[in-house]
């Protein structure tokens, strides 16, 4: 039985689950819904959660499964294209929103979001697990339910594409 409370689970996982959802869905409204669905499922299943497991990995798996169920919907795919991420609407947690934030930084963020939108959702999600959580390939493979070779290919493809797209913006 788990001793983890709902509040503790949310404190430990919400921001990162939201980031994963945002990178999967590509827009804030769907990320909001997806994260809420995933966290509510996780909270309702807390009794079955084993304390020795990593709650973040567990919530990631629930988020990924919920997203896979959503992408079956054609209407959802169509909507996703209409509402891209607004780079000015959110900051990385390490930054404070301030009037001093320079135009350059905003432009940089816009370029970054535009470059990310050119990547496959699964590739972006794999980057989240590797770059933001520092997960090993074997753990990413278990979380995403794919072979390790797929993790390796996705990471290479994502980084190479991101590098290419960012260079394109830098040259423009």
């Amino acid at each position, binding site marked *: 039985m788990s001793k983890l409370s709902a509040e503790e689970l949310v404190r430990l996982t919400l921001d990162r689950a939201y980031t994963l959802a945002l990178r999967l869905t590509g827009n804030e409204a769907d990320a909001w819904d997806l994260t809420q669905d995933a966290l509510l499922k996780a909270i309702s299943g807390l009794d079955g959660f084993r304390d020795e497991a990593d709650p973040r990995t567990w919530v990631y798996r629930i988020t990924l499964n919920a997203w896979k169920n959503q992408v079956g919907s054609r209407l959802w795919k169509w909507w996703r294209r209409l509402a891209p991420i607004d780079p000015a609407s959110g900051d990385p947690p390490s930054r404070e929103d301030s009037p001093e934030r320079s135009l350059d930084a905003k432009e940089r963020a816009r370029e970054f979001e535009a470059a990310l939108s050119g990547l496959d959702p699964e590739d972006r999600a794999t980057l989240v697990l590797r770059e933001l959580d520092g997960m090993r390939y074997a753990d990413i493979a278990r979380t995403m339910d794919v072979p390790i070779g797929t993790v*390796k290919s996705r990471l290479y493809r994502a980084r190479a594409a*991101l590098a290419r797209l960012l*260079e394109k913006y830098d040259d423009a």
Partner: protein
Amino acid sequence: MTHEIEAEELSAYLDGELTPKKKAGVDRHLEACAECRDRLESLRKASARFRAEAARKAPESLREAVLGGAPKAEAAPSSPLGFALALAVLLLVLLGVGKLFKPQISQVFNQVMAMVSGAAQSVGSGN
């Protein structure tokens, strides 16, 4: 020059996910290949940029909705009574429109049914 390593290995090299033997092979190749050193640097920059900029803090409204088990505030009607009223008005409008245009609606319905039936017949006869 020929590249003795696969492109994906450069990315795995960056993550420290290669076996010691493969890592030694990549090290050797990198010493001799400026092109692969540039590619590695470019992958490293993309990784660093993602680490620096990809994370987002969840909106406070989401935290409250999850902990309260409440539906999304922006999408929810302002109150159950407001929602019931809006639904009642919509039903009345639909009934009114239906009554007003009853002959036209049934005419359009008959035409659509005739078209569907004709299409089904032509499919059935192989035309």
